[in-house]
Structures are given as structure tokens and as C-alpha cells.
């Protein structure tokens, strides 16, 4: 009985700790589910400038809280997603975009995986062709004679 009680206490304590920890990130209420969805995806796609690899929806850095608030205010102001992302990159740089934009500077980044797939495909085609040609080659008279000799030996044994 005492064990169960202790376990219950532990569970409650853990839950409380969890709640206290989650308290770092505020909860925002939206009347409009579309706005809420946009808020979620925007805050998930913006990177915290301070913490290197955390989205602002997951970070308790002060600057992330400021950015979430700004996203919220701009959404309430009726701004488009692209305007909100521009608003952030104008201040914090392209660094805050988890999805880098397709532009001259990022061409290599976006193009390289595709280029590598194409290159690999070409290589496979090339190798297969070379192999097929090699196996289809005719045997020379000498090779034919050796092959016959080998087969005959096998049979006679």
C-alpha cells in the first residue's frame, strides 16, 4: 500500500515538474482554426536565432518569445505568411528560415541532391550497358576450344 502511495506521489511530482517546464512557452488562443494552424506552422518553420537548432515554437529563449509574439501580432493584423517570413528575415537574416528559399545563393543546396540522383542514375545505366556488352561478346575460336575441352572433361569423369 505504501509503495502504491509513493508511486502516486512520484507520478504527481513528475507531472507537476513537466507542467512547470512547459510553462516556458505561452499558450495562445485563437478563435479562427485557420489562423491557429498558420501560427503553428509559422512558428515551427522559424529557427531561433540564439539556440542554433530549435524552432521558435519549441524554444524558451527570450528572443523566441518576442518572435512568437510578433508572428501573432502580424497574423492578427491580417498579414500573409510570406510577409511575416520577410519581416523576420529582414531583421534576423535567412538563418531563421528552416526552409531556405530557392535563389542564386542556395541553388547548390537545392540542386545538389537532384544532380547527384541524376548522376547516380547515369552511372548505373552506364555500368549495366558495359556489363551487358561484355557478356554478349562472342567467344573466340581459341576460347571455344578451351570451353569444349573443359565440358568434355567434365562429362568423361
Amino acid at each position, binding site marked *: 500500500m505504501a509503495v502504491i502511495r509513493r508511486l502516486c506521489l512520484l507520478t504527481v511530482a513528475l507531472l507537476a515538474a513537466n507542467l512547470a517546464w512547459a510553462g516556458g512557452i505561452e499558450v495562445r488562443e485563437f478563435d479562427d482554426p485557420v489562423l491557429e494552424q498558420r501560427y503553428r506552422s509559422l512558428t515551427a518553420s522559424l529557427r*531561433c*536565432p*540564439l539556440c*542554433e537548432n530549435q524552432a521558435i515554437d519549441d524554444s524558451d*529563449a*527570450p*528572443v523566441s518569445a*518576442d518572435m512568437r509574439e*510578433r508572428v501573432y501580432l502580424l497574423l492578427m493584423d491580417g498579414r500573409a505568411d510570406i510577409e511575416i517570413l520577410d519581416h523576420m*528575415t*529582414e*531583421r*534576423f*537574416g*535567412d*538563418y531563421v528560415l528552416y526552409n531556405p528559399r530557392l535563389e542564386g545563393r542556395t541553388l547548390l543546396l537545392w540542386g545538389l541532391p537532384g544532380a547527384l540522383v541524376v548522376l547516380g542514375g547515369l552511372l548505373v545505366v552506364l555500368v549495366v550497358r558495359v556489363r551487358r556488352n561484355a557478356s554478349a561478346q562472342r567467344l573466340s575460336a581459341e576460347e571455344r576450344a578451351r570451353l569444349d575441352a573443359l565440358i568434355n572433361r567434365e562429362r568423361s569423369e
Partner: protein
Amino acid sequence: MKRRLLLLLPLVGFLVLSIFLYRGLSLDPFHRDSALLARDFPAFDKVTLEDPERRVDRALLEGQVTLVNVWGEWCPACKLEMPQLLDLADRGIRLVGINYKDTREKGLEFLEEFGNPFEVNIFDPEGNLGFELGVYGAPETFLVDRDGIIRYHHTGYIDPQDVREQILPEVQKWQ
């Protein structure tokens, strides 16, 4: 012979990739250019830390090269870099502070304790001027030229070596 050389291709690819990734290890992700470089210092209309009656705006930063330092009493690295800022002020460089996310009382206490290299301090308790500047932690320092355009940005603590090797050359460049 040619076919043999072809066998080395994966090794070459591996070496190139290794060098590329190894270089990445030594890059500091905090050393990235501010998005505001070569752009106007953002417009603002604020009161000063020293005098709640005095309003200042962007015109404050026009006419001469200015170092704008973002600081707060809550920021330990700001205390460490004060001697370097005082040194810069002694060399005749104009410094303007932004008291960022701080209270007036604590900000003034800080200046009393650690010295005041600033001609004036812009009071930014909510941090919205900091936001316009893309500040994500204090201290941060911006070099603004005589036309009010941001020319250089330093993230984090300025040590004596930074003063010699980065700050002073940049100030001279835009003077």
C-alpha cells in the same frame, strides 16, 4: 591504366567531402552577418535612459561615425566588456548605448558601477528597438556611419583583441 585511375574516384570524392565537412566544424554559427548590414539604422522614437523627458530618433546617429552598443544590467558579458568600451571612448570614438530589456533604475545603477562610455543611452525596456535590429542576445554592437547606415556588427562580448583587430580598423575604415 585509365580504368585503374577511375577506381580512385570514390576516394577523391570522400576526401573532398571530408575537407568540406571538417571546415564546417570550425565555423562559429554565431559569426554570421547581420541582415541589416549596409542598410539604414531602423527608425525609432524613444526616450533616453538618463532623462525620461528627452526624446531621441534616428537623427541622433547621423553626422558622425558611432558605435551603438546593446546592453542590459542582467547581462554578465556586458559588464566584462565595459573596460573595452571605456577604452574606445577614451580614443575619441562616439558611443551610444541601447539599454535593452532593462529597468531605468537597474540601468542607471549599472552605469554608476561599471562606468559610462556612452554619450547617451536609448531606453528600450520592451526590447522593440532591439527586435528591429535583429538583436538576439546582449551584448551586440553596431557600427553606424555618418549617414546612419549600419556598416559592421559584432555579436557578443568584445575582448581587447577584438578592439585592436576588428573594431578599431572598422571605425577607421568608415571615419
